[in-house]
């Protein structure tokens, strides 16, 4: 898990850096805790699904897979933009770095908009956490992730503001790496969540 994530770090600098994860170690403790929470959540989902396969199979087609797919693209694009942004600052290309970061925030915003429409349709149909086990997991997992996208965006916006003010440089951009690492985690979780809840049968 950790290796996948560090793989997202700016490739051009990887060889020159000492062997430690990019960004502040404190965020990695937090990321591991978050991944653990999501991991256990996924495991509980899997076990419950195994026990109620018929219900889950019957309910799954009701989910909006197109919305899910669009959101996957948005998050992947967002992650790529963040990686470009870190790469730019590493070359001291500050305006480019700020622009890439802005694009990443726009992708995150797009995710939230799509998700809100998806939720609106579900809530209009009277679905809530007590509807049945499938919807309980669907809403719990996607909502928990939705909140993480909001948190990730708050972090990216804070980094963006500091970047615009010239707060990062090729020599010191650890803060940006810290925010980027968190955003990649949010992306990674969705990449597992989407097939697990929307697609896999």
């Amino acid at each position, binding site marked *: 898990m950790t290796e996948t994530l560090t793989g997202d770090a700016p490739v051009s600098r990887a060889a020159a850096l000492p062997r430690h994860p990019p960004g502040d170690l404190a965020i990695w403790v937090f990321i591991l805790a978050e991944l653990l929470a999501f991991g256990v959540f996924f495991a509980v989902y899997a076990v419950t699904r195994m026990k109620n396969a018929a219900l889950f199979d019957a309910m799954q087609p009701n989910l909006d897979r197109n919305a899910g797919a669009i959101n996957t693209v948005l998050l992947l694009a967002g992650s790529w933009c963040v990686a470009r942004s870190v790469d730019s600052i590493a070359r001291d290309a500050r305006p480019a770095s700020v622009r890439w970061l802005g694009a990443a925030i726009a992708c995150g915003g797009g995710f939230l908009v799509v998700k809100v429409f998806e939720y609106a349709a579900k809530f209009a149909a009277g679905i809530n*956490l007590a509807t049945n086990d499938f919807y309980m997991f669907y809403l719990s997992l996607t909502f928990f992730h939705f909140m993480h996208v909001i948190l990730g965006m708050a972090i990216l916006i804070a980094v963006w503001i500091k970047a615009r003010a010239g707060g990062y440089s090729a020599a010191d951009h650890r803060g940006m790496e810290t925010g980027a690492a968190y955003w990649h985690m949010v992306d990674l979780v969705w990449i597992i969540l989407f097939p697990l809840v929307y697609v896999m049968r």
Partner: protein
Amino acid sequence: MQYKSQAVAKPYFIAALALFVAQILFGLIMGLQYVWGDFLFPHIPFNVARMVHTNALIVWLLMGFMGAAYYLVPEEAETELHSPKLAIALFWIFLVAAGLTVVGYLTVPYATLAKVTGNDLLPTMGREFLEQPLLTKAGIVVVALAFLFNITMTILKGRKTAINTVLLLGLWGLAVMFLFSFYNPDNLVKDKFYWWWVVHLWVEGVWELILGAILAFVLIKITGVDREVIEKWLYVIITLTLVTGIIGTGHHYYWIGTPEYWQVWGSIFSALEPIPFFAMTLFAFNMVNRRRREHPNKAATLWALGTGVMAFLGAGVWGFLHTLAPVNFYTHGTQITAAHGHMAFYGAYVMVNLTIISYAMPLMRGRAANSNKSQVTEMWGFWLMTVSIVFITLFLTAAGILQVWLQRVSDNPMPFMMAQDQASLFYWLREWTGVVFLVGLVVYLASFFIKGEEKAAA
């Protein structure tokens, strides 16, 4: 002791230990009533003894926290306390209120106490751990606010350290969450739901901030490890605590009329709750191993390490044992809960209070550490009490497993009282272990009176 006003902590610590003794004595009465049903009946029925046992515990832990705050906040802020006079006045108000409440519990029927203390105006009494009359509850709020004012003013005018900030956050959280004790709707489900906002968000939320801050302070003092390192650990531990603990409240929402989704959310997040406790154990041992000085107060070091280990065992491991919804379905409201409660409270909050008392009392009495003879006695107290609580927990766990089996799982479920009779051997063993605990407590208290060669104050 670097600031004169730190000395106001002393009466708080002494009163806390006196209430600790009362708590244990009433615990022994209850333990005996488990096997000798009508012991002291009808003068001190079980529910009265239990009220004194649990309320004395809560009050003495709060007394200890306040004492700890008065001791460590000036030293951290590098300034005298805002108002030592206020601190002393609050001490007497709090002590007298607590004393009168206990006298009320023991001398008049609870229903009469409710009537004369104005429970009809705003019914808040008669809920577990929140049995205090309205007057006492209001008194707690007033004392807490005045105390927080005193501490906050001290911190504002002085150095702002991570330890002070975290402690202050914990103390404010404690006061704010207590306000939910005034909310008691007729709807039992809502009553129970928000009751846990006091009880759970205290012991698995804001109290852990207080615990972390006190432990961090003592570890800085006795190990000499850089403040920077210890403060980082502190932040990581309390982050993990609240990340898991806040939603972990859900493990109380399985069977009280609340929706089923809490079974999933509560199980997942409370399954992660042992992690911060494990981090705390690692933290304590790591810091002591990396110590840069040999502090003469070995007993305080032992208490600090003990807190790390016992909090992990009691709150972490014993909590995890029955926190998953499918397990809790069978163990909810049995002796398993009692087993967990005893070790968790002792391991986390009793021990952290005894840690700061062990560290601060000699300094307030004008020496860096007690004489070797006194410390050895104190350590005897440590081991007697700690080993006793481990065995009390094991015996209650055994009683709990038997109870769950006979009353909940077997094909022919046994009525409650019959199942209790089957477990009486374990209750006897628990009671005798409780006597050993009391001996440990007496030995511990005796260590305060043992003289011998003293080392000069640092």
